């Protein structure tokens, strides 16, 4: 069987407390594309993200990334994705630097490469003086920066970003946007959610509009005016 490269989400349904959150959701994302999930609060944007990383159990459906099925090869599937959650989620046991080491070792990044990447990213994100701090002594913005660096470290085929600019200052946001574009150019599939439509328009190539857990529209980001009108409805 020949599998297409890319992310396939087919007929995925999720229920939380017997309430349908995602209903038969299907879409396909090509490698190297940046796709924005758009929708009102409660439309199911974060739920699809959590389902992709396996935090949320799905009732039915199929998720395949570059030919690797989430259901059948869960760990190889997870090895191929990286995730920035909406709220920074760091381990209280580890300092910022130890977080980077954790990610580096988990994704089997070469030691020298890891050192260089951490050095580059921490300088860009302006957290070089906070590397030995534990999460509780960092501000929310700083924690978000640590979380973002962690997710940018591995070279994986899929990068999931839930509200990428939440809590980041203007410079960090600009850098993240650049880094995301660069990753996409290298062939990474980027799936992001955001309420900041102007930023989405600048960053994404495609959009998927969700409503009540269903895909109601999708297409090129250039049809943004239509999208904006619908979103405001």
């Amino acid at each position, binding site marked *: 069987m020949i599998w297409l490269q890319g992310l396939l989400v087919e007929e995925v349904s999720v229920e939380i407390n017997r309430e349908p959150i995602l209903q038969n959701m299907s879409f396909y994302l090509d490698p190297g594309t940046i796709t924005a999930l758009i929708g009102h609060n409660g439309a199911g944007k974060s739920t699809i993200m959590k389902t992709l990383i396996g935090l949320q159990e799905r009732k039915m459906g199929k998720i395949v990334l570059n030919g690797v099925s989430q259901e059948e090869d869960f760990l190889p599937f*997870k090895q191929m994705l990286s*995730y920035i959650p909406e709220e920074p989620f760091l381990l209280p046991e580890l300092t910022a630097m130890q977080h980077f080491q954790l990610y580096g070792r988990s994704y089997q990044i070469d030691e020298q490469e*890891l050192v260089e990447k951490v050095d580059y990213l921490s300088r860009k994100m302006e957290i070089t003086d906070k590397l030995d701090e*534990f999460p509780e002594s960092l501000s929310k913005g700083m924690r978000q920066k640590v979380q973002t660096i962690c997710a940018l470290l591995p070279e994986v085929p899929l990068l999931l970003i839930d509200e990428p600019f939440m809590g980041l200052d203007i410079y960090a946001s600009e850098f993240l946007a650049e880094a995301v574009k660069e990753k996409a150019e290298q062939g990474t599939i980027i799936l992001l959610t955001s309420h900041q439509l102007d930023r989405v328009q600048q960053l994404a190539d495609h959009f998927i509009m969700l409503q009540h857990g269903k895909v109601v529209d999708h297409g090129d980001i250039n049809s943004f005016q239509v999208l904006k009108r619908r979103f405001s409805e």
Partner: protein
Amino acid sequence: MTGFENAWSVYRYVKRHRFRKKSKLYKLAFGVSFDVTISIYLGAFLLFGFFILHETLQESADRILQLQSFVTANYLNLVLVLFVRPVITSFTRPGVLFSSAELKLSMLPFSKQQLWQYCIGERLLKTTAVWVFLAGFIAFITPLAFDFVMMTAGLIILMDVLMAVPQWRLFQRHFLIKLMTSTAIVVMAAIVRLLSMYVGGSAWWMGVLFVFLAGTNILLLKRATESVNWSKVVQTNDLIIWNMWFINKMSQMEIKPPSKQGWIQQLFTSRVNRKRFDYSNPVRIYRRLWKNYLLEQKEAVIRTIGSVLILLVLLGTRNDWLFGFGIALAIFLFVQMASSFFFRWLRQQAGLLFALGVEAVEAWILLLVCTYGTTYISSAYTVLTYVTGAALVVTGSIMVLYRFNKTIFSLSNGNQDVGFS
């Protein structure tokens, strides 16, 4: 630095860092609290204390050996208590320390199920180590037989192993299901106890219970990590892991648990209570503020009511005098708590009244009503406090006098007896 080969290596990595961070915190707190001199004295006291305890226990060997034969004859009771205890604990604790760190690791390329298995394995190892050490220590320090101590520790460990997964699964369930299950378990334990009393065969009943629990474990293990409320689990476990008593005391900072979605919370935040209310009506605002304040202070309210009830039950079973004394003490406690509630409430909520969009005049009237109302009530309570305080003193004095007279009377009778003989 090499990559993590599997979930076990990353689990150990996090555990190592958790241990280091906790040790560092303990060292800091210890350094603040104890200097070298105090530490030496404390060590010496502990050493002497150990020898004194050893001597004292050896002297009361008869009683301790009586306790040993009593426990040996009642092993089934011990097992039933160990059977019921985790079920009751499941209302507040998941039993397996799967914290936010493990959840975070499960978002990386590691299996959540494996991480959960390591957590449960660690719990069982820790329990075994603690109980084996404790049993060794008890066997060394007391005249209890080594076999008996080890057997008891073995039973405790076995029950802990068998009850870990049922407690975990039960923690995930709704409050009512937990309530029904725990009631059923208590009834089941009572039936087993009664049957063993009438039919006999304690060992046989224990065997049946072990087989039943082993079967339950096999059934539950398959779906141990399915339909789990992870946020509730990690919130509770993080609190257990990082709420260190010694550190809290030394830093004078207490980590408070997040507001629980317990049944009391749900009761007060039900749909009816969440509905909009007529906030232009000062009386409704007054009621709502009181309700919220009581909800905030629910732990203090429950603790007071619980203490008063325990006091009455404990003293009521002794004799009439003590029961009377208990009632006076209960009223005293109640009055003290109620008046402090009024004062605090007034202090906290007065400013809020103006921020609620109530007309200024109405707000003033409401504030005056509250102030004077609470002042009058609290004054009345203060008077009542003095009255109950006085009643306490009088009751106590009468009791002492009564005892004294009784002693004098019996002594004088005793002397007469001596004289006659």
